[in-house]
């Protein structure tokens, strides 16, 4: 049964169409990655699923119900500014429980339990400013997981981490996914990250955003990018992604010049620029 179902979805900002006729179903318990060039509306789609924005046309259902606002079983996590600087780690994790009406004491008790499960209990009394980037994202995950969400939406959650931390956190995400059995949708502009994590990758076209390719990745975890199945998917997605990035980054004349100089040789460069830039 699909956990998330999107049909005929359009989202306009004034005269600008951010998302155009999106039809997509996301299976319960799956880990789906949205990949696409900057400005393709993938973040907008995530916020629409989270109920933080409303579609101009079309509908979204989660667990069979229309999304009309933020849902108790759906939590969104961002790249930055997840944790509230003015609350301790413990109170950050307790935040959602307090909103749900638990007493301060009970909320803190459960928050500490959750922090113990993820090995962060000794940081309970710290403030976010005292934590490393990776730890902050782990606390943000703990804050979501303590609410036992069915759907976890993540917008570039590892985007501001250094390369090594990012790799470790990718493995961590997979373990979180397995334990929580939540349906995860992850926005990333890093194709390799999507390949390492997702069992399905949805590739978005440049503005207006629309899914142009959906690739299932049947490989088991832990994965190696050298895996034949992954390489095949990577080649297919990379070609698509490069075209979309080139279309957003370059004007017609520049594209012609690119083609003349041999698009093949500029492939790595274009892709590298896309994955280093900000979303």
């Amino acid at each position: 049964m699909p956990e998330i179902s999107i049909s005929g979805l359009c989202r306009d900002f004034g005269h600008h169409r951010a998302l155009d006729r999106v039809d997509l179903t996301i299976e319960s318990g799956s880990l789906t990655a949205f990949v696409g060039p900057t400005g393709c509306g993938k973040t907008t789609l995530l916020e629409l699923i989270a109920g933080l924005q409303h579609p101009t046309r079309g509908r979204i259902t989660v667990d069979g119900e229309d999304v009309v606002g933020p849902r108790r079983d759906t939590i969104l996590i961002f790249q930055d500014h997840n944790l509230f600087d003015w609350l301790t780690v413990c109170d950050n994790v307790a935040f959602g429980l307090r909103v749900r009406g638990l007493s301060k004491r009970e909320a803190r008790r459960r928050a500490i339990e959750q922090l113990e499960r993820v090995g962060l209990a000794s940081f309970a009394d710290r403030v976010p400013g005292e934590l490393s980037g990776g730890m902050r994202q782990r606390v943000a995950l703990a804050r979501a997981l303590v609410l036992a969400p069915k759907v976890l939406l993540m917008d570039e959650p590892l985007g501001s981490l250094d390369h090594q931390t990012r790799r470790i956190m990718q493995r961590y995400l997979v373990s979180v996914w397995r334990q929580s059995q939540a349906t995860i949708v992850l926005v990333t502009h890093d194709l390799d990250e999507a390949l390492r994590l997702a069992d399905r990758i949805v590739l978005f076209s440049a503005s207006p955003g629309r899914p142009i390719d959906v690739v299932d990745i049947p490989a088991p975890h832990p994965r190696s990018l050298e895996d034949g199945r992954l390489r095949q998917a990577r080649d297919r997605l990379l070609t698509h992604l490069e075209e979309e990035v080139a279309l957003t980054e370059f004007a017609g004349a520049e594209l012609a010049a690119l083609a003349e100089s041999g698009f093949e040789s500029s492939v790595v460069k274009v892709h590298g620029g896309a994955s280093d830039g900000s979303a």
Partner: protein
Amino acid sequence: MGGLIAAWIVLGGAWEVGARLGVLNPAILPPPSQFIPYLFATSGSVGLGVNKVSYAAALAATVVRVGIGFGLGVGAGLIVGTLLSALPWARVIGVPIAQILAPIAPIAWIPLAIVLFGTGDGAAVFVVFMGIAASMTLAVVAALGGVPGEYVKSARSLGSTGWRLWLRVILPAAAPGVATAVRLSFFAAWMSVLAGEMAGINSGLGSLVILGQQEFQMKLVMAGLVTIGLLGFGFDRLLLLIRRRLLWWESRGARAVGADA
């Protein structure tokens, strides 16, 4: 703190030495060794009859005026700024009004203040209030507008709504920016009250300094100047202390600010 004490000693010492060596004319710039004993000997009284002003009474008047005006101005700025941020339709007209009022120099309100309230406390409080309320309102609107969208979205995604969202997330997120504006407002308030007292409101520290000048009582002028400096400095430190208490999380961790001491 050590550096500050040393700075006062260096400044005072240079003044003393300059006066003794005759580099600074002690008739115009009497050093601390002259004006401090003078204050104790005369209790800083100047003028005659109904115009007689004492140092202690002047000091008290100024502190009360700036305290009330600053409190009202900051309070109004917080309330109006928050309302304007929360109500988009009010912002359309409210922010331009504040933008029109904010650049009017506090001193320009003095004639109106005296006509409205006479030459006493009311006028001084009015001048301080008008000097800071509009700019404080704009600063609050800016601080609230500068709250990262992710905070609000995270909180809403976790289920927070309505006034709780404001109280628990938006206001704390804006607090550092607001605290900086409060501190800057104090400087404006302090200047406003003294300017008012020098230009028509006939009591308080500013008035005392002007009287001293008119009667060429330079020891009183210097005592007044040093008092104004010390008090202003003291209040600023107090505000900084309050900020550190209220925004306790700022002084912890790598992203700590407050290094602007």
